[in-house]
């Protein structure tokens, strides 16, 4: 989709194509449940037969971050868990959304302690906040419908009018807020450092002419 995105002006064809892509994205969201605490149990309640929210909206639980496009953070995020959530978020493939379920994920709730992260939106951009401790399954259904509205209004191939705002931008980089000694995860710089390893050895093997512009 990279080639088509953000290229075309608004006209009849591009808007319908956009609505088709959004319709597909909206009606078949595969959630990835990060059920850390009590909200995780309540999110299971959302899945089964009494409230039956997930399956009816076409959502199928996938446990691998690559195949899922909605990350549901349900429960308290501790500082030991923060790098893991950031890593899972980075592994998800592109049109991805985050739902923060429960006040622990939104703001750290009653746990204002040394080891709790005061809200998951400090490390990942969150689209939908579902308050409650734990939120009742109907609240979760409302959150899903809200997310579908967000997706429906997405401009995929049409030119982006304003800066893309997928919910609140993370105010702080995850690596600054944590204790210095926490488990070090590769940052963007580390990726960039290795980015052109392949290109360099292609050059050595003479497959591509040296000095090609590296984006």
């Amino acid at each position, binding site marked *: 989709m990279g080639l088509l995105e953000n290229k075309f002006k608004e006209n009849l064809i591009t808007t319908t194509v956009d609505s088709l*892509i959004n319709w597909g994205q909206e009606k078949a969201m595969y959630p990835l449940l990060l059920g850390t605490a009590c909200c995780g149990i309540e999110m299971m309640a959302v899945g*089964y*037969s009494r409230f039956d929210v997930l399956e009816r909206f076409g959502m*199928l639980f996938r446990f691998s971050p690559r195949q899922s496009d909605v990350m549901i953070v349900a429960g308290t995020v501790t500082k030991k868990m923060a790098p893991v959530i950031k890593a899972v978020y980075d592994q998800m*493939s592109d049109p991805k959304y985050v739902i923060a379920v429960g006040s622990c994920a939104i703001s750290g709730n009653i746990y204002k302690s040394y080891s709790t992260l005061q809200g998951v939106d400090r490390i990942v951009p969150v689209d939908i906040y579902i308050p409650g401790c734990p939120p009742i399954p109907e609240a979760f259904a409302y959150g899903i419908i809200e997310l579908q509205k967000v997706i429906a209004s997405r401009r995929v191939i049409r030119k982006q009018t304003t800066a893309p705002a997928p919910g609140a931008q993370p105010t702080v980089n995850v690596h600054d807020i944590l204790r210095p000694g926490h488990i070090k995860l590769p940052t963007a710089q580390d990726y960039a450092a290795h980015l052109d390893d392949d290109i360099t050895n292609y050059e050595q093997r003479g497959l591509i002419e040296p000095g090609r512009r590296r984006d």
Partner: protein
Amino acid sequence: MFSPARFFETGAAPIVAPEQAVNPQTDPLIWFLQTFITLFVIMNVVLVTMAYQTWAERKVIARMQLRHGPNQTGPMGLLQPIADAVKMLGKEFVVPREADKPVFMIAPIMSFIPAVAAFAIIPWGDARSEGLLGGWIRPAIANLNIGILYMLALSSVGVYGIIMAGYSSGNKYSMLGALRSSGQVVSYELTLGISLIGVLIQSGTLNLNDIVRQQQASIWFIFPQFFGFVVFLISGIAETNRNPFDLPEAESELVAGFHLEYSGMSFGLFYLAEYISMNAIAALAAILFFGGWAPPFDIVPFTLIPGPIWLFLKFAFFLFLYYWIRSTLPRFRYDQLMGLAWKVLFPIALANLVITAVVKLIGVHMGWWV
């Protein structure tokens, strides 16, 4: 008097090359066009039904679990497979950094093509008769003499896609999934093959169409070959990594098994490949043991329904069986899985083979074999 010569002279009609479905006089161009159109129609039917199988499975399993399946997209959730496809096409295709890129790209294709190719030889109607529209849509794409051999060969090629996926995505979980699936498919292919030989001995031919016609003449092979059928079904389920045997992509242990690193349409290919190979086994079971396109009794109400509908009904029943098993049975452990294959299924298949052979020999000798 018993003489070795009689060994090879079976009472069955002399085996001749199956008459070509279409009279050979038509010039090759029209013949090619007819084959192309048949291929186009049947492949479309196959792919669309596979897509709608994901919908059917989610609905049936949901019903078994006291809830409704997807019903928000389209009237009864009917547009759900289309929504899945559109979403998967829109997803970013992520290639992990330490993945082996070429192998990583080819793996889903390697597992999708054999699954689809298996439908080339399924005879939807009597391969000899004129198909629909006066021959333009023939009942079977290819009426191979070695139908079953082709099927077995394809089902063993499918496992290469899984192993390549597991190896190339550079992830410990998918590696474990790939190792498990290679061990599983190899052992269950053996029992699959041997359980089919019983049918071959009884029908005397490898051509699927002739097998169905023999069943139409005599009784369905499910009754004489009951044990062969049981072994075939179990190893068929194991062959396609379906539920009690779904160790390669066991959600609870290996997160998502071999297709862990695949996103977007490549995961879609794996997802469809699993369903299509499941259908191939179901269609094969319907043809070999339940008389493919032949109606159960030749009396009027049954013969009104055309051949393909019968075949579709039969293997829809097998699909329902798959879903039923998937929602109820827990999963095997790896060593139990191998134990079942080698200690239980293999002896039964061998015994069934030997008994059928002996009965056939005595039958041929006594002359009451038709």
